């Protein structure tokens, strides 16, 4: 023992044993599916969340600065006035373009999942888990906004994950890329059941699919609706690899998520409600402060989408888009309560 600890002392060994015991006890109590957040962590998350959020905003400001001013530093002095005007206009255009893009993204999100009987809260991604082993994102909505544990988190592209832990104003979402997240899914074309589990930063594996199922590359994977987290029929991803080995009863399937996690900025939290009818009419309510800070959604292309941060909230009409199906098949799966539409982009 003396060798192991160098200048070993009894106190040192006792300390190691106590802390190791605490750690092992903590690991034994740790649940990778759902976590109760201790007060210390709630305090830390609440304290750090604004800094992470501020960092994201700061990046936007720096980006503005870089794009609009640094590029014209070397302009001729004689043209300074003109350049300033151009810069101002460019700045305005850039801001308008950013607003337009943000507006479009938010409108797409608002139009998504109108038929799903759950309350919806729009949230902004403010941070990513600092550990390599976990694919977790932090969003700027928490208990105070109505977010509860195990609420599904989606975008108009598909499933993002579910709420793993919640503080008052922030929540951690365990994404489908995380190995601890398992989603009950079906292959849209063959209706074959399987479990999608996170594998790497850009792909998942689909397990327990019978090797006789005629799965092919390019098949669409959607949520099965079993379990109590995800509604049925939301896109999970596309099959990119199928391997049938000469032994075993299942096949090895690799799935690429339909959500582009590298470009994830806003998400919708789907919160379960006891009254499905109420949730059906529950468009994202600005009065619940569910929009990301400083973001206003104004009608642009479709006048019916009338959600603003100042006006009385009105239900958002679903934005109907013709379903385009070049190769994959788009269907609407239905259950007694849930009728989501699966949109397939070319």
């Amino acid at each position, binding site marked *: 023992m003396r*060798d*192991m*600890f*160098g*200048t070993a*002392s009894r*106190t*040192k060994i006792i*300390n*190691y044993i*106590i*802390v*190791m015991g*605490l*750690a*092992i*006890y*903590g*690991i034994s*109590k*740790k649940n*990778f599916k759902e*976590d109760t957040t201790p007060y*210390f*962590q709630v305090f*830390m*998350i609440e304290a*750090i969340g604004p*800094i*992470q959020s501020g*960092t*994201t905003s700061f*990046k936007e400001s720096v980006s503005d600065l870089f794009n609009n001013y640094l590029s014209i530093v070397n302009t001729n002095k004689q043209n300074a006035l003109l350049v300033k005007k151009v810069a101002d206009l460019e700045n305005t255009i850039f801001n308008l373009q950013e607003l337009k893009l943000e507006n479009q993204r938010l409108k797409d999100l608002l139009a998504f999942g109108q038929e799903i009987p759950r309350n919806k809260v729009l949230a902004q991604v*403010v*941070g*990513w*888990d*600092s*550990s*390599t*082993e*976990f694919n*977790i994102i*932090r969003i700027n909505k928490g208990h105070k906004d109505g977010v509860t544990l195990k609420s599904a988190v989606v975008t108009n592209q598909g499933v993002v994950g579910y709420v*793993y*832990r919640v503080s008052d104003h922030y929540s*951690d979402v*365990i994404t489908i890329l995380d*190995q*601890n997240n398992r989603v009950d899914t079906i292959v849209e074309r063959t209706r074959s059941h399987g479990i999608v589990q996170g*594998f*790497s*930063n*850009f792909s998942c594996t689909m397990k327990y699919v019978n090797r006789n199922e005629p799965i092919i590359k390019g098949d669409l994977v959607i949520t099965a609706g079993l379990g109590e987290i995800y509604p049925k029929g939301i896109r999970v991803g596309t099959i990119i690899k199928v391997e049938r080995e000469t032994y075993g009863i299942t096949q090895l399937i690799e799935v690429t998520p339909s959500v582009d*996690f*590298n470009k994830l900025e806003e998400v919708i939290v789907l919160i379960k409600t006891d009254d499905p009818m109420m949730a059906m009419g529950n468009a994202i309510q600005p009065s619940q402060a569910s929009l990301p800070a400083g973001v206003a959604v104004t009608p642009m292309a479709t006048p019916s989408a009338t959600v603003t941060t100042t006006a009385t909230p009105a239900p958002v009409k679903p934005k109907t888009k013709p379903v385009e199906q070049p190769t994959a098949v788009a269907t609407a799966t239905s259950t007694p309560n849930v009728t989501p539409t699966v949109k397939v982009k070319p």
Partner: protein
Amino acid sequence: MRVSFNEIIIRLMVTIIFLILLEIFSSAVMPAIGFKDYTLPFNVLIIIFLSFRFNSSFTPWLLLILQLFHSAFSVEGWALATFAALVVCILINYLKDLMQVSSMLSTIVVSAIFQIVWFLVIATVIAAKNNDFSLILPRVLRIIPETLGMSLFAPLFFKILGRVWRERDDEGVSI
């Protein structure tokens, strides 16, 4: 070099602030500028530094406190990270005399090795909890680029932490 308990507390607080700043950099700044696929686990480097340089009976408690703060940034949690930290710390204590971290190259190599040990421990415990050991190897292989990236930071990092812990010789700090 022996230091008083009060000095240790002050140095620990500075290290915690340093850790928080780095965690914010890793969890918010880096993703904001496009580095979302790779995360730099700065807490691991701090643990490796303390294991090498801080020779005290309070070391396990220091590791526990640092991991408590780290847990605010990661669902890894304090328990799992502390367990990995203790395993790495014990290993380093055991092997310290056989290794030199005086040159830049040796610091990079040694920190890379112990980062891999760290992730191996974490992956194994998670696999044991999930009863699925098939993902251990792919996940450990996946973290190698990050490990190498972090290792390049290690000499500078150890130098900064050396200032915080006011190292004067190769013997490190003890109380």
